[in-house]
């Protein structure tokens, strides 16, 4: 029996063993597969899920923390969806409390108010009103 982990939609991690797939036949239908990257797209109940399977080596690398060395601080504000920056409500050096509004992002005709997840001081504002941003673009960085 081998241990695996699967990351689904970059959102959650599922622990699996090599025995499970046989014990429980899955309902999903795989619509796309990339064997070498161990990346699969699975269709269930009208939606699809992107699964990346991690083997023992991947898990070891994750444990050593190498994969996260370059990632940004969790507190930095990233775009939760693609859209247009309507308004930036803070400036560099501002002191922010958790829950304070930081900027307004419009996507598909709806305005979304993005708020701060932490208390902190704004180090840099990377966008301005009128900019179009992709999902996960870092918008505002906090002092660490």
């Amino acid at each position: 029996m081998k241990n695996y982990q699967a990351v689904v939609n970059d959102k959650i991690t599922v622990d699996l063993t090599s025995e499970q797939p046989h014990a429980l036949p899955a309902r999903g239908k795989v619509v796309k597969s990339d064997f070498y990257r161990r990346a699969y797209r699975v269709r269930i109940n009208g939606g699809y899920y992107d699964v990346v399977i991690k083997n023992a080596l991947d898990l070891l690398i994750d444990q050593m923390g190498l994969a996260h060395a370059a990632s940004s601080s969790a507190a930095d504000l990233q775009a939760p969806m693609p859209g247009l920056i309507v308004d930036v409500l803070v400036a560099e050096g501002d002191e922010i409390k958790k829950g304070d509004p930081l900027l307004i992002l419009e996507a598909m005709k709806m305005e979304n108010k993005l708020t701060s997840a932490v208390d902190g001081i704004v180090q840099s504002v990377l966008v301005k009103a009128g900019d179009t941003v992709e999902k996960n673009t870092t918008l505002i960085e906090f002092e660490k």
Partner: protein
Amino acid sequence: MNRINKILVANRGEIALRIMKTIRKMGLQSIAVYSEADVHAPHVSYADEAVCIGPAVSAQSYLRGDEIIRVAKEMGADAIHPGYGFLSENAGFAEAVQKSGLIFIGPKAEAIRIMGDKLSSKAAVKKYNIPMVPGTDHAISDYKEAAEVARKIGFPVLIKASAGGGGKGMRIVDKEANLEEEMSRAKNEAKAAFGDDSVFIEKFVSSPRHIEIQVLADSFGNTVHLFERECSIQRRNQKVIEEAPSSFVTPELRQRMGEAAVLVAKACSYDNAGTVEFLVDENRAFYFLEMNTRLQVEHPVTEFITGLDLVEEQIKIAAGEKLSFSQHDLAINGHAIELRVMAEDVWNGFAPDIGIVKQYQIPQGAGIRVDDGIREGSEVSIYYDSMLSKLIVHGKNRTEAIAKMLEAINGYFIDGVHTTLPFGYFACKHPAFVSGDFNTSFISEYFNEEESEKIFTEQASEAAKAALALYLGELKKLRLPLH
């Protein structure tokens, strides 16, 4: 009688295509207008003729009434169909179309003006004794006045764009501390969406049902109603699932609401197709909300249960024909349900998703209808609203319609953007939906962050297992050592 041979469709996406299909069925000619972003859109290739009217941003293309009228004249159109959204409820546009000598397929500008403003619509229907929700009877832009009104009618209150529709510029405020900020957001949204930032405030009736009545009126004063649509399943005050008839509406209530809707139409001398929206509380008391002076997104459920083609009726009415039926000719046949298929990640608070549609397969079969505006290779961009298509099913009763919806969702594959299809599946399996015992808090109650997370985790595990099973199978086939 006004002759209509050629119709310009001033819209995009599924509704433009749906209107053109009826135009073709009637043996008439269609003209599409499109933005630079929509060069390859299905409504452009389907139309008999197509004209580019500007860049992607709606304000410089689909909202340019003057340019659209100029194109219509130049191309020899007789009439303009506005669809829904964009210019459909713009009285100034309707008036300009008429002044230019063209026919506007919709009501008269005056009716749009009265009903388009939530305050004047209330004033117009008042004399017919139609029940209404307490609130302001004039537009407000000053925060102090808003606070005063809100205090008087009591929180929670609803802020709505006076010129609004489709849930845009709408905010629920549950305490005074949030009023100022929410009001400024609502005003900004209203300004961006409708070019008018006046808002009004009314009491927020918690957990009501949202039920609307379709009406049709010709220019000879004949007005009928085509029964109700139940539209209670909403996220961000925008509908996701609609059905007809409503399992909550008794024959007696249907008759009373139908009669009220006809009176609302008469209050503004309405002609063409329109919808009167009501809130219905748990005691089956109903309140007039607004009248939508256009074709609704969810009109296909009414078409399924009445056998009528509403776009065809609209065109005939605009051409000066009389309605060919009266109220007693109309009856409800079976049950229809519509799911709005929107490019949204339902596991992430219905956040908009964009991308390229890489694969596209639609379900087929008796009683299954797909009104769509995308094809394989279509780009879903941030410029337009997130609705890709509508999946509509018809069964001889509600149980059969729900079963058909589940089957159709399983046969509908859109790869490349996340959609609301999995939410439709969830709803059709949910005991509250199946029993018919639900209201506008369905999503906040049963599909909130916590609940949807649970379902997501369950389905993600299933997906992970399916992927691992395939991976292990491939490993074996390739005879690579397991590592």
